[in-house]
């Protein structure tokens, strides 16, 4: 039991700190592509502290407050189910299916909170966010299913062990490249980056779900962004890139996954909602299905 306490404390903490690094990297990469200097190293921390140090904030009722709990709670729980080097957390108890369920909680929480703001831009934004979820979840679930079938287990710890036993040649990305590629595209959509950034869309719906978030609420969303990037990076790493043998390698892989996404995003515009669904259900889904067929054939 005592070992779990350490896991519960350290796993979200590590996730948060790594997430800050990922956010910083995303902003720096964007700055470099745009040929400018970019924010200072501590900028993500300054932003979050500043938002939490706001002296006034507007709440839109109980649901609005609760949604923030759901949002952060969902991600913190998800971190505990994600095995990282040195910490297994609850990954042995719950499996991949549980994790994917938990990962839907934050988005639903956000939907509930934004719904109580009565701002039409927020409502449109959240409906777009849920639509986007529908779009990227299908290829993602296919990729996850294929991977589980190939590994023969849904237990993340075992998946990591299987991949590490055989070295890089037995990594998911090497044994099932189609699934890994389809998964990467889905992961890009999951991070909400252009061309799949349909629910943020400042010029269309004034930043959608965030439109009424102020002070601490916005701070929570900034923290959520850290967790989101980290969680997505770690899931992908665990499934297809061999998980973590040790921290330096593990972090390098997580950063690499996020790096691909943030490097690509800055040279694309944003799709329309229907284009995104069509694209997601066509290419990543098709690739992942082909990968799944290959896995089943073997």
């Amino acid at each position, binding site marked *: 039991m005592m070992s779990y306490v350490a896991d519960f404390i350290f796993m979200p903490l590590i996730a948060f700190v790594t997430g800050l690094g990922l956010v910083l990297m995303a902003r720096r990469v964007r700055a470099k592509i745009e040929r*400018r200097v970019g924010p200072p190293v501590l900028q993500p921390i300054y932003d979050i502290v500043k938002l939490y140090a706001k002296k006034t904030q507007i709440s839109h009722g109980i649901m609005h407050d609760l949604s923030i709990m759901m949002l952060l709670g969902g991600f913190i729980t998800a971190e505990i189910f994600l095995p990282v080097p040195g910490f297994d957390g609850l990954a042995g108890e719950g499996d991949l299916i549980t994790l994917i369920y938990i990962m839907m909680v934050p988005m639903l929480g956000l939907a509930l909170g934004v719904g109580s703001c009565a701002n039409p831009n927020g409502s449109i934004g959240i409906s777009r966010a849920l639509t986007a979820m529908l779009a990227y979840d299908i290829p993602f679930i296919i990729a996850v299913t294929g991977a589980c079938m190939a590994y023969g287990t849904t237990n993340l710890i075992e998946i990591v062990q299987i991949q590490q036993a055989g070295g890089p040649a037995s990594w998911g990305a090497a044994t099932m490249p189609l699934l890994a590629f389809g998964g990467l595209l889905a992961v890009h959509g999951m991070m909400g980056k252009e061309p799949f950034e349909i629910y943020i869309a400042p010029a269309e719906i004034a930043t959608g779900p965030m*439109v009424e978030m102020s002070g601490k609420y916005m701070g929570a969303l900034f923290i959520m962004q850290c967790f989101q990037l980290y969680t997505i990076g770690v899931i992908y790493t665990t499934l297809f890139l061999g998980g973590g043998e040790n921290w330096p390698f593990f972090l390098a892989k997580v950063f690499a996954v996020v790096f691909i996404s943030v490097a690509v995003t800055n040279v694309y515009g944003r799709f329309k909602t229907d284009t995104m669904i069509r694209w997601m259900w066509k290419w990543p889904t098709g690739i992942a299905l082909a990968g799944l067929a290959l896995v089943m054939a073997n």
Partner: protein
Amino acid sequence: MSDKLPVIEDQPEICRSVDAGERSVWTRVMNRFADHCRARSLFVLHYCTGCGAIELPPTITSRFDMERVGVSPMVTPRQADILLITGYLSIKTLKRVILSYEQMQSPKYVIGFGSCTINGGMYWNSYATVKRLDQYIPADLFIAGCMPRPEAVQQVLLKLMEDIDAGKANGWQDYYNNYDRYLGNQQALFGESWHTPTDVIAEAKHYGYLADGTMGRHTDLLLKRADYALDRVPEDYPERGKNERRLP
């Protein structure tokens, strides 16, 4: 320019009020830390109120790159810290500026951009533009010129950062403390039925910024004339989130 004598107003002393909690070392350290972070993370509201906004894209983009000092544009007033009044304000815009300003969350800062915000500038005899910004909302800093260069914008942002870091940029408290005066000036321009959806007095009460100047002659008018009843809102605001005025 004018043979009419200018109206003399009491300039309130803008300084930080000391509350009891501030005596403890912990609170002081935390406040210091918060100020430090506030100064280094400034979100500018994306609102082009006038022609000065044309110099903001150069300031933000690759050549001058505001983000390297932690300044980035933000879309909604809820999240923004700085309201840049980029130039002249027509009366119609001023209404929206006040609405946006009241929706922003404290601490918030206002920078008047260009000569037009100081004394009407080029449009001093125009019937449509407001001559003095600081009569209607508290402005922390002004940039002179028509129009100010990106370097000047950066300079003023750095100055604002210094002020925030030192805990001196407290114009927003002035709005709570002297709401009556600001509202009076607004009413003089927009008519006596002018009101905004944000209940500034209730906010001042709730967050402890109530001062002698918060309520007075003009806010009484708000009570009397507004199409909704302020007195139906309970005196005390036990819960957060109750600080909005009810609409009929």
